[in-house]
């Protein structure tokens, strides 16, 4: 498998991961699932987020930069909606005797209604995100192998340089070693 094929398969996997994430939220807002730990609260810990912030960004120096920026904004917007849903459905009455005795307060019907409204917005943002992902995939498909590999290898090299710290020289102040 070439580098390009490998990269395209990762894009498809990312799409699948994102759809799975949206479906998990649909299950939550419909009341079928009330495990708040099923979805990561931090976007960078989510499967799609991990791909977006690492592998996808490796291609951001080419003409896909704009579409990747759009994807990042939309993904943030999706997560903003999820945070609102989380706050509504999994809220706790902190400090009350009852909450400490019986756990978190159960969400009401009106809470679920509000969560569904947030979910509708999330779904809209998610559709936009998937559209952008499709554009990104098309751009990658249209790129010839040589250019694709040169872009990725130069980016990977620069990433490697950033990760590998330069050997720091020892510095002294008035004869005492300054710790870096």
């Amino acid at each position, binding site marked *: 498998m070439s580098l390009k094929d490998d990269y395209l398969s990762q894009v498809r996997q990312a799409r699948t991961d994102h759809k799975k994430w949206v479906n998990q939220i649909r299950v939550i807002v419909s009341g079928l699932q009330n495990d708040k730990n099923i979805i990561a609260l931090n976007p960078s810990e989510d499967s799609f987020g991990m791909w977006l912030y690492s592998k996808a960004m490796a291609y951001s120096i080419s003409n896909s930069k704009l579409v990747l920026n759009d994807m990042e904004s939309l993904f943030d917007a999706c997560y903003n909606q999820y945070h609102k849903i989380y706050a509504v459905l999994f809220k706790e009455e902190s400090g009350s005797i009852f909450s400490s005795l019986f756990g978190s307060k159960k969400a009401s019907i009106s809470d679920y209604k509000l969560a569904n409204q947030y979910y509708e917005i999330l779904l809209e943002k998610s559709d936009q995100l998937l559209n952008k992902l499709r554009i990104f995939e098309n751009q990658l498909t249209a790129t010839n192998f040589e250019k694709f590999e040169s872009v990725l290898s130069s980016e990977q090299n620069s990433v490697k340089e950033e990760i590998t710290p330069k050997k720091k*020289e*020892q*510095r*002294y*102040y*008035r*004869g*005492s*070693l*300054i*710790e870096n």
Partner: protein
Amino acid sequence: MENFSDVQYILTSFLMLFAGALVMWMAAGFAMLEAGLTRTKNGVVILLKNMLLYAIASIMFYAIGYNLMYGGEGIFTGDIAFALSGINYSDHSLMADFFFQVVFVATAASVISGVVAERIKIWPFMIFVAFLTSFIYPIQGHWSWGGSALGGFMNGFSDFAGSTIVHSVGGWAALAGVLLLGARNGKYTKNGGVRPIPGSSLPLATLGTFILWLGWFGFNGGSVLAMGTKEDVDSIAGVFAATNMAASFGSLTAAIATQMLYKKIDLTMVLNGALAGLVAVTAGPNLGMFAASVDGIVAGLLVVFFVSFFDKIRIDDPVGALSVHLVNGIWGTLAVAIWNPEVTFMMQIKGIVAVGLFTFITSFILWFILKQTIGIRVTQEHEEEGVDLHETGLEAYPEFSKNN
């Protein structure tokens, strides 16, 4: 003008006044150097100390010190009299002489300020300065410049402008203080390591050093104490040139030494190197350019070595004043015996020991009394937050403060 002696009187008095003004400017140099080599959170107290010590030195030396140093024929001290009473000179103005001498006293006090910086309380420091400038400095000064020679013990001791009498005295008094005061919090680690505390402004420290360098022309040049003849002027010019040469070699040597030891040039050591050269040559700036050059080279090496040495024995000196003024005050005084055939090492050692012992012991007792009574060190909390806020309520750089 009635005769030639009047011209001599005028010119000599003018030399003292002009040189005195240059030396007074050294107070600014000390303030900038100290402020630059310490942290901004302590800047106000440092400036305040340098300002007030000069004021206290001026008042106390006028009221008591000058008579103790130059009045009378006593072996141990001069006259206990008030405000220059009973003293007169025929060849120059008394007030010119007083003004020139008083700025030297302030210089000795300034040395202490740098060593105890960033953890000393203001008022105990000021009380110490008042005693130093009223009694300690004038009494030891009476043995040499006052002419008593301590009953013959210090016969032949030669210290032209005060490597020992001014600079080492400041150094010994500071050493006594810092032994009782202790190091700044965090300077030394429990496992014996030294944690550098970089200064806040190297441009300020450099400006301070240049001001001191300029002031030193007055310090050494004025110490010729006569400008009545062509030979006097030649002597003054020679002293100026030798002073400049020692500072030049001191700074250059420190630069080369730090490059070799630490693979990079340390500006703060170069600044100290220049000052070390100046302190060293102060005992004999009239001994020629070669002597000044060697004085400066050795001083530059000594300062680089002793800054690390004092850290190794856990004596925390933020500005390197002990290495500059105490160590090189001793070196410069000893070096006179190398270049001046009329002076022996024994004569110089006796003078160094007498002045050193007297200054260190009296200073230690005074610091100890202050420590036991009103305390000399700020609290740990105040030290961490910076002494400025607690001692003065002000900040040196309020725009950059986290409190705003």
